[in-house]
C-alpha cells in the first residue's frame, strides 16, 4: 500500500514538473523563474527542520514575508496590526526578502489624500524599521515591497492613489497582488500603478457561496478568468496555493475561516459528507473555541488540482524573464499535504 502510495505521488510530481516546465518554456524559452514562498505567520518559533529542508532542497531564495497588516478604525485611524514577531535567522541571510503588507480594503473607503500621503510615509517607515530590527542578518537590503489588498471598484481610485504615492516615495520596486477578476477586466478595474503584479490564482470563490466546490481553487472558475484574457500590461509573477483551510459553522451559522495548521485537529473530526466534517469533542482551533457538533468544511489543495491549474495557466498567460513562482504559504502542516518528491519535482521542473 505504502509503495503504491509513493508511486502515485511520484507520478503526480512528474505531472507537475512537466506542466510547470511547459508553463515557463513555451512562450519564452529564455526565462528563469525565481522560486519564492510566502511566510504569512504572525508568530513563529524560527523555521522548522521540515521547512528548512524544503527551502534548501528547492533552492528557494525569495521570501515574501508578511511584516504586518493595516486596518482602519475610529480610534487609531489607519494603523498597522498583526505585526510579525520573529527574526530571520542567520542561515537565511542570503534569501531575498520581500516585505509584504496586507491592507484591508476598508482602509481605502472615504479616505482623504492627506491621510493616504501620511499612510504611505508611515508604511515605508515601519517596513524599514522592522526590516532593520527583525531581518538584521539579511545580506542584501530589500529591493521590492509587495502590497496585498482585496480592492474593489469602489476603492480603486483611492487604492491607486495610494500606490502611486508609495511608488513615488519608495526607493525600491513596488509590486501588488492581482486577483483574477481585475486581471481579466483591466478596462473596468484599471491597471495597477506599480512595477509588477503577483497574479494570485486562488480564493476564486466566496467560501460561503462555494457550496460543494473548493473555494481555494476551482478549475472551472479559474478557466473563466483565464480564457480570453488579454496580456496584462505589467510583468507578472504567479502565486499558487498549497494551504488547507477550515470553514467553521457553529450552530449552523458560518463563523469564520481558518488556516488549518494543526494536523492533530483532524483526529477530532468525523466525516459527514463531501468536504464536511463534524467536531467530536470541544476543542480550540486558532483561539476559536469549537464545540462538539460544530461543522467544519475542509478545503485542501492536492497535487492533481495544482497540475490542472498550471495547465490552464500555461495555455493562457505568458510570463517574462525574472518572474517568480511563489507558493502560499510556508508552514510545516501545508508541506505535509505534499510529498517531498512532489514539491521537489515542482521546482526542479522550472528551467535553469
Amino acid at each position, binding site marked *: 500500500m505504502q509503495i503504491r502510495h509513493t508511486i502515485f505521488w511520484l507520478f503526480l510530481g512528474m505531472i507537475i514538473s512537466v506542466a510547470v516546465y511547459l508553463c515557463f518554456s513555451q512562450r519564452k524559452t529564455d526565462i528563469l523563474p525565481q522560486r519564492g514562498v510566502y511566510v504569512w505567520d504572525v508568530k513563529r518559533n524560527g523555521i522548522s527542520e521540515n521547512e528548512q529542508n524544503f527551502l534548501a532542497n528547492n533552492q528557494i531564495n525569495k521570501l515574501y514575508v508578511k511584516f504586518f497588516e493595516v486596518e482602519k478604525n475610529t480610534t*487609531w485611524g489607519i*494603523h*498597522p*496590526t498583526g505585526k510579525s*514577531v520573529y527574526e530571520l535567522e542567520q542561515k537565511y541571510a542570503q534569501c531575498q526578502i520581500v516585505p509584504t503588507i496586507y491592507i484591508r480594503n476598508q482602509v481605502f473607503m472615504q479616505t482623504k489624500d492627506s491621510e493616504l500621503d501620511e499612510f504611505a510615509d*508611515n508604511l515605508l*517607515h*515601519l517596513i524599514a*524599521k522592522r526590516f532593520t530590527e527583525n531581518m538584521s542578518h539579511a545580506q542584501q537590503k530589500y529591493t521590492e515591497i509587495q502590497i496585498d489588498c482585496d480592492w474593489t471598484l469602489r476603492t480603486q481610485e483611492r487604492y491607486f492613489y495610494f500606490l502611486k504615492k508609495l511608488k513615488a516615495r519608495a526607493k525600491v520596486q513596488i509590486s501588488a497582488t492581482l486577483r483574477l477578476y481585475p486581471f481579466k477586466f483591466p478596462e473596468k478595474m484599471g491597471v495597477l500603478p506599480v512595477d509588477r503584479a503577483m497574479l494570485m490564482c486562488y480564493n476564486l470563490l466566496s467560501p460561503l457561496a462555494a457550496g460543494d466546490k473548493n473555494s481555494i481553487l476551482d478549475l472551472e472558475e479559474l478557466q473563466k478568468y483565464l480564457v480570453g484574457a488579454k496580456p496584462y500590461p505589467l510583468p507578472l509573477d504567479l502565486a499558487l496555493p498549497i494551504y488547507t483551510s477550515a470553514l467553521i459553522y457553529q*450552530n*449552523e451559522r458560518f463563523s469564520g475561516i481558518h488556516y488549518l495548521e494543526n494536523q*492533530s485537529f483532524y483526529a477530532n473530526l468525523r466525516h459527514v459528507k463531501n468536504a464536511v466534517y463534524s467536531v467530536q469533542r*470541544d*476543542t*480550540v482551533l486558532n*483561539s476559536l*473555541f469549537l*464545540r*462538539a*457538533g460544530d461543522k467544519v468544511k475542509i478545503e485542501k489543495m492536492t497535487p492533481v488540482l495544482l497540475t490542472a491549474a498550471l495547465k490552464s495557466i500555461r495555455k493562457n498567460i505568458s510570463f517574462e524573464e525574472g518572474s517568480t513562482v511563489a507558493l502560499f504559504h510556508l508552514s510545516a502542516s501545508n508541506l505535509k499535504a505534499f510529498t517531498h518528491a512532489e514539491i521537489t519535482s515542482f521546482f526542479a521542473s522550472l528551467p535553469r
Partner: protein
Amino acid sequence: MQKLLLFSLLYLASFFNAHSCGYYPYGEEVRFCLLKPNLVYPHSTNAFFYNTQRYSGTHLPDDHFQSGKNAENLDWWHKLLKEKASKEDIYYAVYQASSKELKRKKSSHVAIRILQEKENRAYLHYLLFAKKCSPFNGLEDDPWERNGDNWAKSRDKLIQESTQRAENSTSPELRKRYAHLAIRLAHYNQDGANVKKLYARFFDRNSMQSATDYWALHFKLQAEASSPERNVDVAMVITHSPEKRKSVSYFFDPQFSRDQMLASAKSKEERAALYFWQATTSFHPSLEELKGFGKNNQQEEHLLFLSLREINKLEDWILTPYYSLFEPTLRTTWSDTINAQVLLRRIEADRVYAGHFSNWLSEIHSQTDLRNAWWPAIRIYADFLAGSTKGIEARINQELAKKSANTELQIFYEKLLAVCTVVNSQGENLNELNVEELVLRYKHDNLFLFAIGKELEYKDNKVEAACVFSNINLSGEYNDAVVWKSPEHNHTLWSDYYDNYFFYMDATYTVNELENLIHYVKTTANASAFDQWKTEQIRKDLDRLYDLLGVKYMRKDELQKALKAFNQVAPSFWKGEVFQEYMQQDPFDNNFILTSYSQSDKSYTKPEIVEKLIKLKSRVMASDGDDKAYYAFQVANCYRNMTYYGNAWLMKRYYWSGNHYDAGLEDDAEYIEANFAKKYYLLAYKQAKTKQFAALALRLAGQCEKYALLAQNSLDYQERWSDEQMFTMNEVYRKLAREFPAEYEPLVSNCESLYTYFESIKRP
C-alpha cells in the same frame, strides 16, 4: 401561486409578530435557565458562567465598579483604609481621580482625604506613581512606531524607578505592587526576559499570598513557552484571580493531557486549580473534576461557582428538552431524526447524573461548613432535576420560613415551589393547588409560566395548560420570548416551533380538548383576579377558537360538526381583512383552474362553504346521470380547493408555504393528495353522459392522482417528473388516454383548451 405565498405571509403577520425570514431560535433563545448565575452573583459578570456565548457573549458593563471587575483591588484598598471610605469612593480615587486631585487638600472624597493622612502617604505615593505609569500600559501606544524608541525608553526609566521603589519599600505589599508595575511595563515593552527576571527577583511562585502575586504571575507566564507547568500557572491564576481569569485563559494550551499537567502540579492547591479550570470550561458532565477539586481544596467560593455551573448544565440538558422539546443548547445534533421520545430517553440518563451530583453535594456538605445562603436552593434544585421531587415542597417552605433578606433567593424558592407543586399534583387546577398567587405574582416571567404550563400538560390538564400558555409572550419582547416544539414535531407554520398558544393548539389539541377549553372559559366566572387573568386572553380569542374547532372538524371531514363550530363565530369575524382579501374565490366554481374564464364572482365564508358542500353531497346521493355528475363535480371542486393546491386551503390550515406542506396533522394525506376530490371526480366521470364532460372529470381525477403521486414520492415543485414519467405512473391519465384518445392531448397538455370542456357541463 405567488398570490397565495404572499397571502400566507400577510395572513401570519396579521395574527402575531413573526420573526424575520430565515430566523431559527438557538442558544440562549432556547436554553432553559431558572437559576440564573446573576441571581447568585448579582454584581458580577463572568465569561465562565455556563452559557452558549462563552468568550464572546459576556460584555462587561461600562461601570466597572458594578461589574466587580476590580473587586480584588478595591477590597484591598478598602481594608487598607480600615473600611472608613466606601468602595465607590475608593473606586473614584484609584481609577478616576487625576494625580492633581489626589494631591489636592480638602478633597470632597473621603478616600482621598484618608490617603493623604500621614500613615497612608506611602500608599498615596504608590498610587500617584501607578497613575504616572498608566499611559504606558498598552501595546498600541504608537502603532507606526514613529516614537517607538521614546516609548520604550520611557518605560525603561519607569521600570528602573519602580524597581528602585520596590527595593526601598518597607511594606511587603507595596514592594510587590511596585514590582508588579515594573513587570507590567516590561510586558508592554515586549521584554519577556526582563519580565521573568523581575518576577524572579520580587515574587515567590511557591508563596502566593495576595492578588498581586497572581497579577504578576499572569504576566510572567505570558513570557514563557507553552508547557504543562505553564498550564498549571494559568490554572492557578484562573482559580485565584477572577480579574485575570478571562485574559489568562487564552494561554491555557489544550494539547497537554490532564495527567501530564497533574504530574507537573506540586501541591494540592495546584491540583485543585487544574480541576477547577477543567470544570470551569467543560460543557460536559464535570462531576469527576468537581470531586478532584473537592479532594484538594474545599474553598466555598469555588465550590459554589462550580456547583452553580453544573446546575445550569443540568437545567439545559434536562429542562430545555423536557419543556421545549428543543435539544439541549450545547449538545445539539441538528438532526431531523431526533424526536421527543429520543429526547425524553436522554433526559432520563441526565436525571441519573443529576442524582449523582446531588449525592456529591451532600457529601461535600457533610465534610465542609458551607454557609452561602444559596446552598440549600442548589441542593433542592439538584434533587428536583434528578426527579426526586418527593418532599421538596416541604423543604422549600422550610427555607422560605427563614425569610431571607436575599430577595432573589426568596423569588427563586417561590417559583420552584409553584412548579414542584404542579409536578407533585394529580393535575388539579392551579387554584386547587394553592399556587395561584405565586403564578400571578410571576406572571411576567415567560419561562416560569411555560414550565407551569408544560407540567400541567404532562399531567393531562390541557385546559389549565392552555390558559397558562395563552399568557406567555404577551409583551412582544423578543429577548424574553419562549419558543417550543410540539411532541409530534409538527410543522404547521413556517418552521417547526411555536411561540403562541393558538398555533400550538392547532397542532396538538384534539377537538375534545379544544371543546373542553371553550366550555371552561365560557362557564367560568371571573370570581378572582387569578381566574380573570387565566381566561382573559382566551375570551378575547373565542371567535378564533371556534374557527379552529371548525377547521379541526373539517380535517376529519365531519361537516355537520364543523358547520356548528363555524356558526358559533360572530359573522363580523369572516369580514376580517384576511378573509376579505384572500378568501374571495369560489371553491365550487367549475372553471376554478382557469380563473380568467371563471363565470363566478361569488365568495363564501367558511360556514357558507360547509353548508353548500353538505347540500351538494346530499344532492349527489339523491340524483342520477348528468345531474349526479354535475353535483359530484362541484363537490370534487370544493374538496380539491380545500387542499394544498386549492383556493380555500384556509378551511384546513393556517399557513401555506411554497416549499413545505408536511405539517404532521392527521389529514396531511388528504390535504396533499386530494383523495376526496379524486373520488368525486371519478364519480362524475362515471355518471356523466356527455363524452366531453366525462373526459374532463377523468382529467381532473388524474390531476388529483398526480398530486398523490408527487406526495408519495416526496417530489416537490422543483423536481417533478416529465410528462412521460407522469403518464407512466398515473393510472387515471392512462385510462383517459385509453378511453378518450382524441381528448387526451388537448386536456392534459393545454389548460386553455379546458375552457371548451367546461362548456360541456350541463346544469340540472
